[in-house]
């Protein structure tokens, strides 16, 4: 026993010593790393001024489906333009919605970035501040609302008509409900969907309402319950929220929040899920049906090319199905109802041609009444005063008067449960 202990000790020492030697060999002398401390500022990222560079600031990192969607789109667009990560394009992750964001933007200006993107709604004020201070650099803020009123020449907002994508995903949900009704699993009046939303804010409301209208277009008896987490990313709350909805009798779940909380809760309870931001089929092979997402690559390409050419960038860019900005992921045939792909294709063609409008006032009621007129707070001046008539020819014109959504009406058929407890 005793000798065994000794041998073990010797072996451990030997392993450690070998490890040390390997380190010295690889890093060229153990004292060198410490020695490099003598030359601060030696490796500043100074590049020729003519070189085109781009930067992206993210609220979280790739563990958040929302940020991952931006990161992937950005990498795709940059690499298509021949940019290299760490040399001519940069990504800063986990930058909070405070001074950190401004600092990240300023540092990117110093790195020589010609165009800088930010992905979170709360980044807006800080990006705007950086834009005012650096008029030669273009700043593009996704999901923001202030560009069209602030009129700072190098500050731009962008969004996509994601409500169209949600609508198409809603059709997949409606067909799944029809399948359940036809197979006798539920009765038509029990076709209740659940929705885990982040905040009771126009972007989320517009999203779930279009999703609901998509489902309703194929399954007229559908109703929906909505609960809010009051966070864009909170895995526990999203999971709890989805579970509460399932316990309430919801037979299909969708979500607008950025973690894997809701999809994994659905997989555990074997309840079908319509996802957002990207496919979750790897983690949820039995329940994932389809996901809508914004593909940011077309916008990144557009803004970078415009910056490069010196042509103006729109104050408010709205990506659509036609520009390839609104896309659906592959359908998971294991969970989707038969014929889903064909039905989505048909509906998509109708949306593109203008034959159907998602927010056609003929398709929904508010308090039992058809809506003829609605004033929305499009000019977001902090006054909370709605000022713009957004219903024209019987259609609520979403993402027309500005890129960020402003549909914030509670329509019949959707029950707001309140916050996740």
């Amino acid at each position, binding site marked *: 026993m*005793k000798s065994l202990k000794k041998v073990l*000790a010797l072996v451990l020492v030997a392993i450690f010593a070998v*490890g*040390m030697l*390997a*380190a*010295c060999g*690889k*890093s*060229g002398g*153990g*004292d*060198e*790393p*410490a020695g*490099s*401390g003598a*030359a*601060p*500022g*030696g*490796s*500043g*990222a100074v590049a020729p001024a003519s070189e085109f560079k781009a930067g992206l600031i993210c609220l979280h*990192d*790739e*563990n958040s489906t929302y940020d991952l969607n931006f990161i992937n789109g950005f990498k795709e667009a940059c690499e298509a333009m021949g940019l290299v*990560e*760490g040399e001519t394009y*940069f*990504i*800063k*992750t*986990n930058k*909070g*919605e*405070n*001074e950190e964001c401004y*600092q990240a933007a*300023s*540092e990117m200006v*110093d790195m020589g970035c010609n165009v800088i993107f930010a992905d979170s*709604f*709360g980044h*807006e*004020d*800080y990006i*705007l*501040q950086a834009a005012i201070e650096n008029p030669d650099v273009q700043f593009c803020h996704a999901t923001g*609302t202030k560009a069209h009123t602030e009129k700072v020449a190098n500050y731009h907002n962008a969004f996509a008509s994601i409500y169209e994508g949600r609508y198409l995903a809603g059709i997949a949900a409606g067909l799944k409900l029809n399948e359940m009704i036809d197979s006798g699993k539920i009765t038509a009046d029990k076709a209740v969907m659940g929705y885990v939303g982040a*905040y*009771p*804010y*126009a972007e989320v409301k517009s999203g779930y309402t279009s999703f609901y209208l998509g489902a309703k277009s194929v399954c007229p008896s559908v109703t929906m319950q909505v609960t809010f987490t*009051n966070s864009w990313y909170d895995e526990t709350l999203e999971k709890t929220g989805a579970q509460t909805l399932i316990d309430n009798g919801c037979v299909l779940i969708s979500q607008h929040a950025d973690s894997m909380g809701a999809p994994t809760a659905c997989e555990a309870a074997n309840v079908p899920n319509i996802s957002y931001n990207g496919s979750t089929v790897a983690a949820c092979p039995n329940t994932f049906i389809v996901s809508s997402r914004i593909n940011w690559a077309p916008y990144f390409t557009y803004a970078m090319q415009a910056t490069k050419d010196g042509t103006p960038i729109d104050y408010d860019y709205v990506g659509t199905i036609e520009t390839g900005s609104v896309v659906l992921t592959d359908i998971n045939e294991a969970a989707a109802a038969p014929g889903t792909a064909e039905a989505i294709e048909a509906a998509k063609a109708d949306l593109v041609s203008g034959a159907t409008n998602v927010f056609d006032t003929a398709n929904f009621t508010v308090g039992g009444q058809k809506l003829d007129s609605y004033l929305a*707070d499009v000019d*977001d001046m*902090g006054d*909370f005063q709605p000022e713009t008539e957004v219903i024209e020819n019987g259609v609520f014109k979403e993402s027309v008067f500005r890129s960020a959504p402003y549909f*914030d009406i509670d329509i019949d058929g959707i029950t707001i449960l309140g916050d996740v407890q």
Partner: protein
Amino acid sequence: MYNTIKTPLVHITRRKDIVWYRAWLIRILAIVLALILCGIITTFVVHINPIEVYKTMISGNFGTTRKIWFMGQDLATLLIISLALAPAFRMRFWNLGGDGQALMGCFGAAACMILFSGSVPNWLMLIMMFAAALFCGMLWAVIPAFFKAKWNTNETLFTLMMNYLATQIIAFFVVVWENPKGSSKIGIINQRSRIGWLPEIGGNKYILIIIVAIVLAVVMFIYMRYSKHGYEIAVVGESEPTARYVGIKVKKVILRTLLLSGAICGLAGFLMVSSTNHTLTTTLVGGRGFTGVMVAWLAKFNPFFMILTSFLLVFLNRGASEISTMFGFNDSFGAILTGIILFFIIGCEFFLNYEMHFRKRAKKEVE
């Protein structure tokens, strides 16, 4: 034969004293070892030249003038909160509520900006914000201090819980004051009018907080080292019965010290809102109340060493962030390197306090 006296391979004794250059030698050795281990991991796990990684850490802090200012402001914020905690720790009062106290300071300052903008002149606004921030910070520190002094409750848990309370209160008011509606964010307050913004010195908004931090470090050094209050704090920390015996009013000292602690945290909150961030979010303090614990302890509560230790932590943090940007990782890789370096630095304290004695070879032959 094996029944003779056993000598363990290693035995440990407490060091009586250690000469300063040996202490520094051990510290430097620890950092070198940490860098070597980081080097191994960088080379074998992510296949990058570790020298490049260390260079990136340095350029992340000193790469441009702007970066140096950002780093200075970050350092100053952390230092102020650490300085606030130091006297309480010296008194052996485990104030883990620095985050909450600073956050309440932010809350006090932001509340004034939101509620009274336009109705009072700017100078009065700044005074009101300052007073409100200090008051809120003090309140958050004195509540657990009062319970400790009166009923000897556990201050570690109490101050910790007060952090969560502060976060929830701010989460609530962020919704009350949200702009635009439903967004649950306040954004920059008075971005156009700049009411309640501290003036920039020479067009640089970072100088002020750095000056405040340095002045505070000097004042805190004098206060702890040379004032009667400082002495009382030290005595209470060493032994409460002794303090009582020599006629120190322990309860009074506890309350007074925590009022000071809270006031300085409140000041940090005021500066964060009025001088740099101009907003209110639940994550504004960013865990500095906890990082400050490490800063204060590593420096043994000496305010001047605290400048050094807070620099170390800020340097690692900003360096790690730069690594993720330049090499295209997420923050985890930088966090691993930071963790290793901190592990070695904290671990070397063991070798500063204890001596290792290895079994001599000669003994074995006697056996």
